[in-house]
């Protein structure tokens, strides 16, 4: 069964450490996403698993077999490239049956597999077409059929939807997951699109600067980010800087800039620690006027936008900080620019992180 284990793997390109001592385990039949901003090392990690790049150190196991010195053709993988890499001099049929042919599965088997795969991706009628005659979505399907036709149970996908239009991308991402689940494959999918990763993954590894920051289900990463960058990259967050001014067994009181105080259920920091409090925009509530409540801060509306499902309200707080509030459009009041409001949030719905050594801006930077 294609379970994948990566143990302390590192890879350097000249002076750039692309993958920095990474370890992870991907379970059999799991659809796993490597998610992170451009240049975080996710594609390198995928290529290391595929054998297209050799690690400088560490071990890679596929089905409990150490594959460090196994060439890509013997790793039993299927790989879908970002730009598809369909062989331009071969038609759809020759592309899809390439794997069975080079593996010498025999003419009949190659034919059967080719037919089955092309029917599955609904492109059998285009088997004579050359890649240059196909649309982006079709090329993506052929690339997938070709990777699956090689007979592997481990499917590696490098930003497979990256070159497609938004609408087709949204449709195909569910198809990809469905194919993987129907065929009982283990899938490792690289993407920089957190919405895509959230929508299709069983689990996600969030990467940054060659390291894995957190691995978890989409819900875990969203509801319980363990790293300030994860809180920033998965979904949206407002970040407010402050100090732990009081700590009890049940909660911590944080003094924000401008002498404002808020409570959180955090119990990991001690009094005097400099911290950053992260609050999801959809957790914040906003109401007209200045109404003193628990965990409430006064502010003024700076921007208000209707986005269909939601409205987005940018509010300048009385201490000068700015927060974004996202509320369902049908369930919220509408505000005018300059209007005075009160923003509040439940203490248990915020995340508190130690203030980053290199500064908040640098810690949240995508590059």
């Amino acid at each position: 069964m294609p379970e994948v284990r990566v143990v302390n793997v590192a890879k350097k390109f000249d002076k750039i450490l692309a993958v920095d001592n990474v370890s992870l385990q991907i379970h059999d039949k799991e659809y796993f996403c490597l998610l992170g901003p451009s240049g975080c090392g996710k594609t390198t990690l995928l290529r290391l698993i595929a054998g297209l790049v050799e690690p400088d150190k560490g071990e890679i196991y596929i089905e409990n077999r150490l594959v460090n010195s196994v060439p890509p053709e013997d790793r039993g993988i299927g790989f879908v490239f970002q730009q598809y890499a369909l062989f331009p001099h071969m038609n759809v049929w020759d592309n899809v049956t390439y794997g069975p042919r080079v593996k010498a599965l025999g003419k009949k088997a190659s034919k059967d597999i080719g037919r089955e795969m092309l029917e599955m991706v609904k492109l059998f009628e285009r088997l004579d077409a050359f890649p240059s005659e196909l649309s982006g979505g079709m090329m993506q399907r052929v690339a997938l059929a070709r990777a699956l036709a090689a007979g592997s149970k481990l499917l590696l996908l490098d930003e497979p939807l990256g070159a497609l239009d938004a609408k087709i991308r949204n449709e195909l991402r569910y198809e990809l997951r469905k194919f993987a689940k129907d065929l009982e494959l283990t899938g490792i999918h690289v993407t920089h699109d957190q919405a895509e990763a959230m929508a299709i993954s069983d689990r996600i590894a969030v990467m940054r600067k060659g390291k894995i920051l957190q691995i978890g289900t989409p819900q875990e990463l969203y509801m319980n980010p363990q790293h300030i960058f994860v809180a920033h990259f998965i979904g949206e967050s407002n970040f407010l800087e402050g100090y732990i001014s009081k700590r009890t067994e049940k909660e911590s009181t944080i003094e924000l800039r401008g002498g404002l105080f808020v409570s959180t259920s955090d119990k990991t920091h001690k009094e005097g620690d400099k911290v950053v409090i992260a609050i999801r925009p959809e957790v914040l509530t906003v109401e007209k006027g200045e109404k003193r409540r628990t965990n409430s801060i006064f502010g003024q509306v700076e921007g208000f936008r209707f986005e269909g499902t939601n409205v987005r309200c940018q509010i300048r707080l009385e201490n000068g900080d700015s927060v974004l509030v996202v509320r369902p459009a049908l369930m919220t009041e509408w505000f005018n620019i300059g209007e005075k409001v009160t923003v509040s949030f439940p203490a248990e719905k915020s995340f508190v992180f130690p203030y980053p050594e290199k500064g908040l801006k640098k810690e949240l930077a995508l590059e």
Partner: protein
Amino acid sequence: MAHSGITRFLDSASSKSSVRYALYLGSITFFFALILIPPILGIFLKWNTMAETLRDPTLVSRATAAIYASFAIAIFVSVIDVVAGLPTAWLVARGRSRWLNVLDTFVDIPFIVPTATLGYSLLLFWSKPEGVSSLFGGSLVSPGWLLVILLHFAFSYPVVVRVMVGAILDYKREYEEAARTLGAPPLTTDRTVTLPILKPSLIASFTLAFARSVSETGATLMVAGVFFENGPIFIKKARDLGYEGPLVFVSFILIVISCAIFATIRLLGSRLKMPLRNVWPVAERKLSSSSVTAVRNSLSLFVFLLLVLIPSLFVALPAFLAMTNGTINQAVRGVGVWQGYWQSLILSYSVGFVVTMLNTLAGLPMAVLIARKRVGTTLSSILDVLVNIPLIVPSIALGTSLSIFWKSVAFIPEIGLLTFAHLSITYPYFVRSMAAAIERVNVDYDNAARTLGGRPFTVFRTIILPLTKYSLFAGAIMVFTRSVDETGATLAVVTQLRTAPVLLVEWVKGTVQATPLDIGLGCAILVLLSFIILLVSRLLVRGRY
């Protein structure tokens, strides 16, 4: 950006379509009047002289044999070049050792060494007692067809390697990676995916090697010996004996067959099928092993060193001896055989300089016209094909035809004929290099500059030229070196004047009594000066941008 009066005038004039089309028309006229028509049409003006040759069966069979030898050797050498050059190109492009940079540089050496020098160097290495023959107590390879093959292999090998290294480096490696992830071992991947995608470059490298082999004259004369004849040697002998009919006959056949072969390659090359469908997984996996790859790489290096590099550089040995035994003093004082040497060098470099300037000026509008399809897609494509003709016509046949044309049209001094011949031969090198470079510049850059208010000449000056400056320089250098190197067409058009390669051929053929040390030093000075000029112009260009 400083604007001089001339620049402002050109900027403003370029807005008028009449001015632009006048420039393009001028460029097309230059091409037809000086580059294309004389070398093709001249031969037809002496059509009637061919009859006398056809009446002499001995002469016809000798001429046919010479023509056959030309094409047989060119095809054989080009095939061997591709077979031997491809693994070296692969090694240079894909290898990881830093020593491969050295190999990469060494591959270009036969490019820098003029073919006349290369010919003498090979003659020394393979045939003379000073070379490898000394180990075998005689002449290992006597002048004749085998030495001609070795020579043609040595000078066309770098063409194949250079073209293929570029193609492999430009090749999108994802295709190869995709094939590997689908289960194909390296050899199967290369055979079924990489090589078919690189097919246009393989055909291009074969074509260039073929054209060089068919065209080469000077060095071939040096190593041909007494009995071997190919087309160019036959023409040279016929010319020396004043036989106009056979000369016209062979030139005509060489031009026609060359054009026919290139037309066939162009038309059918893209349809050429490669063995794709069958795979032999077990055998190909074994042949992909690291030990087999190591043997292949070692063999490639051995072939390169033994058949190309060492023979090409062997001329350095007599040149070094000439430095120590006083020959150098004679050379500097210009006495004995050295009397005409320095004038011949000055003539070679002067003609090279003039030809480079003229072709750069006249070739630039043509390159823009072809790359940007300024006169319509069809006409631009036709011009693109026609520009290659001087490249594929054997140079001595080109010179012969050109000489006949101009002599029958007007009185043109020998220096004029020499310049025209060199213009014609070198023109495609510049235009092809520049047109390819301009094609690579995204046309949106031009459009963006135009929408920002740039006039056509401003756009050319500020966008296209800076982005293609290295190709411009490379094209100019190719024109210059090809002109300095040129022997075949030069022999066909001159009677009094002597360029350096022609003089060296005479020294080697014994027309002038020169010692091996004289010849070695003469060759070395030619190589050294070419190298210095290349280096200085490269430094000048680098300082400027």
